[in-house]
């Protein structure tokens, strides 16, 4: 198929309508095609993208009427009021003239000036009188003539008109010079072949039930410009933070872990005391932890209260303990959980012998009393896990973490010694960021201290435990530098964010 007939098959109805008139300038096309100017320009742009013509835009100056100009054109210039007045009264004082002409101060002043300059009037002894024969008054002034002709392109004004324009420009809002884009086009050689042709080709524009019903082989459908841009749409979508949380959740389930859930607001007992954190530990101060303005909570689990107290005070015979007098009132204070390890504590306390071995995980929000900056927020996500089995070891703990982070996309992991009040041995986990070539600190893990397991589980048995921040990972997956972006809920950002795969 030659290029010409291929293009003919792609012409939209709009384009087809103007093809016959393409040898003419745009104003004429608008007139002859009976389309409005916007549609003609649109059709011309389509044709340009098909290589039929090339458009060019020129800026043209045009003299148009200002707001006062529009008014005066419809009525007449204020000086005409004055002239009419002088036609019937030969001499008028300023006050009389002003009052009778009903002009505003400003209009009156301008009118006087204009007429004086033209020597249409003279002013003597405080009186205004006509200076020209009354017959002359029927003639339109050059100003009035120009006003009537406007709007017109600046270049079309003759020398005399230009001078008058300068005079009119002195007056307020009579005339304005506006810039106007004028579009013109030039046909290409392809365009030359097409222009002027009546296109009678019968192309199907839209596939309708009728078209389907009456379809036959010889029918033709107009071809579309597949490169043409289409309006953007937005769809429903999960928040990118939750996408990553779901992914982590899936991985733990795959690895045989059962999900824990529980309260965000919790008594200090389960957040700290049950985890062998002494009551004067700095982490328990208001400086770091959100305390909630509610009356002291209840510790319903009396079965574990006594062993926890003893573990702190004297180590229950297996350890030195922290050697102080444990206070139940302090344990009753209600806080926002500072780690999801409170869920692990409650879970362990609820386990029975025949529940073992057991593996649990949790993903949830934790809180710390902190100001917000690019790297910190008062809320953050943590992923938590415990493995309870009499045979598990410290290297097994490292094994679970290695597998999890590998599945999350981090092949290289490193372990450093660390310290937590409730684990021993403890370990700090870093993963290597392959693109940024740096280690990312994720947080801690360890084996629960015997003081913890004896108090909560009733026996000393290894419980592998970890609780790592997930925000660093979420930021990495979604290429977020500033943590505030994670929580800003910028709707456009959520719409545009890539889906993590």
């Amino acid at each position: 198929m030659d290029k010409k007939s291929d293009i003919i098959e792609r012409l939209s109805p709009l384009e087809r309508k103007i093809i016959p008139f393409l040898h003419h300038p745009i104003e004429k096309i608008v007139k002859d095609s009976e389309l409005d100017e916007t549609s003609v320009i649109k059709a011309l742009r389509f044709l340009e993208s098909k290589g039929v013509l090339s458009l060019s835009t020129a800026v043209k100056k045009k003299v148009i009427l200002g707001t006062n100009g529009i008014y005066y054109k419809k009525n007449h210039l204020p000086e005409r009021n004055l002239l009419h007045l002088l036609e019937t009264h030969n001499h008028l004082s300023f006050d009389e003239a002003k009052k009778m002409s009903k002009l505003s101060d400003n209009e009156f002043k301008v009118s006087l000036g204009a007429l004086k300059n033209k020597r249409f009037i003279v002013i003597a002894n405080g009186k205004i009188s006509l200076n020209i024969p009354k017959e002359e008054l029927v003639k339109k002034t050059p100003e009035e003539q120009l006003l009537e002709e406007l709007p017109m392109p600046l270049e079309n004004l003759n020398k005399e008109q230009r001078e008058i324009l300068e005079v009119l420009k002195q007056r307020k809002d009579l005339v304005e010079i506006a810039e106007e884009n004028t579009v013109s086009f030039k046909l290409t050689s392809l365009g030359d072949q097409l222009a002027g042709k009546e296109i009678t080709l019968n192309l199907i524009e839209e596939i309708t039930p009728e078209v389907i019903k009456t379809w036959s082989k010889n029918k033709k459908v107009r071809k579309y410009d597949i490169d043409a841009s289409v309006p953007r749409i937005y769809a429903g979508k999960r928040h990118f933070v939750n996408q990553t949380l779901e992914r982590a959740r899936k991985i733990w389930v795959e690895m045989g872990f059962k999900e824990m859930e529980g309260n965000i607001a919790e008594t200090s007992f389960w957040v700290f005391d049950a985890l062998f954190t002494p009551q004067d530990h700095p982490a328990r101060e208001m400086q770091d932890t959100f305390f909630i303005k509610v009356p002291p909570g209840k510790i319903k689990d009396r079965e574990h209260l006594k062993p926890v107290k003893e573990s702190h005070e004297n180590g229950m015979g297996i350890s030195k303990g922290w050697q102080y007098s444990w206070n139940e009132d302090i344990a009753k204070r209600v806080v926002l959980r500072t780690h999801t390890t409170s869920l692990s504590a409650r879970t362990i306390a609820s386990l029975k012998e025949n529940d073992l071995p057991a593996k649990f995980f949790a993903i949830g929000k934790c809180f710390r009393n902190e100001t917000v900056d690019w790297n910190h927020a008062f809320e953050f996500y943590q992923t938590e896990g415990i493995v309870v089995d009499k045979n598990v070891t410290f290297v097994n703990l490292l094994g679970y973490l290695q597998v999890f982070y590998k599945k999350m996309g981090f092949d290289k992991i490193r372990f450093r010694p660390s310290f937590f009040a409730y684990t021993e041995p403890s370990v700090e986990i870093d993963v290597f960021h392959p693109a940024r070539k740096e280690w990312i600190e994720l947080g801690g893990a360890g084996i629960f201290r015997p003081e913890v397991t004896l108090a909560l589980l009733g026996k000393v048995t290894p419980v592998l435990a970890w609780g790592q921040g997930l925000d660093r990972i979420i930021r990495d997956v979604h290429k977020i530098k500033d943590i505030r972006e994670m929580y800003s809920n910028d709707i456009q950002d959520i719409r545009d964010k890539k889906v993590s795969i």
Partner: protein
Amino acid sequence: MANIQFNRKEFEKHFKVDEKLIEKISLFGTPASLKEDYVEVELFPNRPDLIPLQGFVRAFKAFLGKETGIREYKINKPEKNYKVRISPSVKQVRPFTACAIVKNMTFTDERIKEIINVQEKMHATLGRNRKKLAIGIYPLDKISLPISYEARDPEKIKFIPLGGEKEMNGREILENHPTGKQYSSLLAGHQKFPVFVDAGSKVLSMPPIINSHETGRITESTRDVFIECSGFDNESLQKALKILITMFSDMGGKVYAMELEGEKKELVPDMTSEKMKISLEDVNKLLGLSLKEKDLEKLLPRMEYEYKQGTLRIPPWRTDILHQVDIIEDIAIAYGYEKLVPQVPNVSTFGEESKKAMKNSILAGTLIGLNLLETTSFHLIKQDEVKNMKAESIELEDSKTDYKYLRPNLLIPALRIFAENKDHEYPQRIFEIGTVFSSDKKHLTETGIQEKENMIVAISPGNFTEIKQIHDYLSRVLGIEYEIEEESVPNLLEGRSAIIKKDRKNVGYLGEVHPETLQEWKIKMPIAVLEIAMD
């Protein structure tokens, strides 16, 4: 966690400092970074013995295998009048003290700064900001022995506080002196304040607040010092004293014990090291290694222990050995965390998502099908939001940000999102599933706070019909039967809002947001919402 900066020049007298060494320090359990003038290490709170450079050098040399085992420190017997009399009057206010004397020191300006630094770090960590313990150091030539530790009426305590010019009494110091004001809470409410007083009735200090300018200030001409630790936990005081005297001893000082005369007589510091049994089997079982007896003989001295046939001696300055596991971790550190090979064991369990997570995930999928965008907001809300919405909300204590309350609903965060997204393309259709908080009036919970999982759908522009369509659709596909009753809902338009009930209990509401509320939030586009409890 405390960050300690060791002078790089001093540090380099003991170690060749390079990236490899820094890495090694991290593997010792103290993450380190190298700066131009200093080496910075992060200490965990269990190892205050590493706060002084001397302590760190001693322990890290052992770790590197250079000088292993317990370093012995010579404690000389007390000379005449090396005594501290502890009056029963201190029992109520600050019951314990532990003291020593160190002679033959050389105090340069730099050394004085170094010691003050150690003192401050120990106050902040082990001392819990001087509450649990505080340390005082005094030039021996300015005081006369023996010393007395007693509690006195604040008005009867008179001395010039360190850095001050005029004499003040105990109460004036708490009220007017900058350090006094900073720590006044530690003595507030007590009838009597503790003081150290010398044989000539001169006040040395009023612990844990401040020393005397006259008797409690070390200068470059000082050679001998009196050291005291005071506080509530005798064990911690003894440890702190041991850490200090090992530091002074490593600086070249000669340490003398002192006799404490309280309810009983006691000679301190007692540098006997505690013994503990350790089982090789337990070590291997916990770590997952197969170490031999001779490995323990090699590894334990690297963490400053002495080990022989199942029994070890613990360095007297270690504060953190409560149980055998604490030693097992040290064995792992000496072995090298970098050498541990991760292994996944065969622990057969079934994985299971929680019902809540599963439900939320299915619901989120359904809502996405309705062309809704998920948002995720803070659980905390701002004070003016609570006020504007007249919503009963639970308050937090001393929040450092504007977010001071727990959200009672998801409407507040949703309206904030609309208010902050006015410049983005409409329609804006959002949903969120999350926890909301209310007072537990029936006292069923342990915390007095009821946590519920709510779902909100909010569309802008949106009207009653559209939001009811969404509600209808959700009820149908989720198979939940709800009743809707016309009722006014706070912040919604009367006549265009309804309460949602299930089994005759209120579970949510739907309707058009009131123009007044929208004005409060400076929102210009109409909003229709549906919020419902999921449980």
